């Protein structure tokens, strides 16, 4: 409840273009947004994330709602930008699996200093092995804790379909983890 009030005041300030409010929103939501885009194997996720934040700043003066509504709205913009970026990458024949391979390679060469970073990359790489809709549903529902209705609104599908996708994604993740106790990076290694 405290979080809700703080974010609501932040949103009010952000609507009028307050820099600190906009920076606060960015610090809170940028990491989940970036991880979401990575899990969807979006090409150039940093650039897409920057474009999403510019869209947010452009339209936040007309936004009405609380923090949950803002998260739903943010991921909706990210979903559309991701789709546009993926379509553009397909037209330019850019390999979508580059991020997963790069993350897997980066995880394989991990050292002690970047242990946490490697763990995050491994998790993102593991989610990237799932189908796009399952990975997106799991990221929005399980990781970012959006309501099923909000997930359905973001993805443009029904709530039942969201539940099915989440269930299948989790089942597939368990199966992948139970096959071997080997690290995720070894399992995701691309020959």
């Amino acid at each position, binding site marked *: 409840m405290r979080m809700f009030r703080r974010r609501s005041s932040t949103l009010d300030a952000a609507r009028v*273009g307050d*820099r600190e409010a*906009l*920076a606060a929103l*960015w*610090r809170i939501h*940028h*990491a989940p947004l*970036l*991880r979401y885009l990575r*899990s969807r194997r979006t090409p150039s996720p*940093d650039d897409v994330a*920057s474009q999403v*934040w*510019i869209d*947010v*700043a*452009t*339209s*936040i*003066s*007309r936004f009405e709602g609380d923090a949950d509504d803002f998260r739903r709205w943010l991921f909706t913009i990210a979903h559309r930008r991701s789709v546009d970026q993926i379509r553009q990458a397909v037209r330019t024949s850019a390999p979508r699996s580059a991020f997963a391979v790069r993350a897997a390679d980066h995880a394989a060469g991990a050292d002690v200093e970047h242990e*946490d*970073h490697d*763990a*995050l990359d*491994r*998790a*993102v790489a*593991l*989610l990237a092995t799932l189908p796009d809709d399952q990975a997106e549903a799991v*990221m929005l*529902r*399980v*990781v970012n*804790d959006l309501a099923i209705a909000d997930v359905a609104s973001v993805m443009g599908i029904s709530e039942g379909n969201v*539940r099915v996708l*989440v*269930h299948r994604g*989790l089942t597939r*993740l*368990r199966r992948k*983890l139970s096959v071997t106790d080997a690290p*995720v990076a070894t399992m995701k290694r691309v020959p």
Partner: protein
Amino acid sequence: MNEFDDLTDLDDVFGPLRSVARPAELSQENATVDLMVKAHRTSEGKHMFTSRRARIATLVATGVLGFGGMAAASSSPGVDDPVEVPVVEVPVVEVPVVEVPVVEVPVVEVPVVEEPVVEEPVVEEPVVEEPVIEEPVVEEPVAGDPDPDTAFDENTCRPGNHGKTVSAVARGEFPGVSVTDAAHSSCGKSGEVEEPEVEETEPEPEETELEELEADHSEAKADRPDKSDKGAEKAANRNSNGNGNGKGNRNRDD
């Protein structure tokens, strides 16, 4: 997170994903926030007129002011303009058309009574052949045997035969005898003059009046002596001949 309570086996995956942002992920904070602030300022200028509400309000206000201004300019007369008398439009009252139901009067067919043509039988009038009337040959009377009815003879004249005698003279049956003579003759006359009995019905006037009447009567006689004589003669003829014609005498004879 009801359906995802038992995710302990997946903590190795979701733990890092739920963790706080890494410093590397927030490295572009300043650059991105600057872009956001710039975009927000740019959007304020744009959305001042691109907002849906603002556009609707602007259109409504423009329309109201425009039409109101035009209406005011057109309706308000200028100083030099003549005063326009408002034309009162009489509402056209539409009289409801009452449709009178058409009553179909049954056509009564009067049976045509064909009167039988009565053919009148052609009555052929028989040709009446008028018999040829042969005029009887009138045998002229012999002089020695005169007709007692028509002979002008004093001896053969019978009482009441005066008229026939005069007629026979007029037809020329008695040549040489004038009709006047026959008429003045006494042939066929009865000879007895019966004076009619005059009944005095009028009361006798008084002496004074009687004298005056006698005086007037005498004067009248003096003025018209012939008439009195003729009247006396006519009265005598009437008395002698009855009605004055031969038929009366004949009937009387019959």
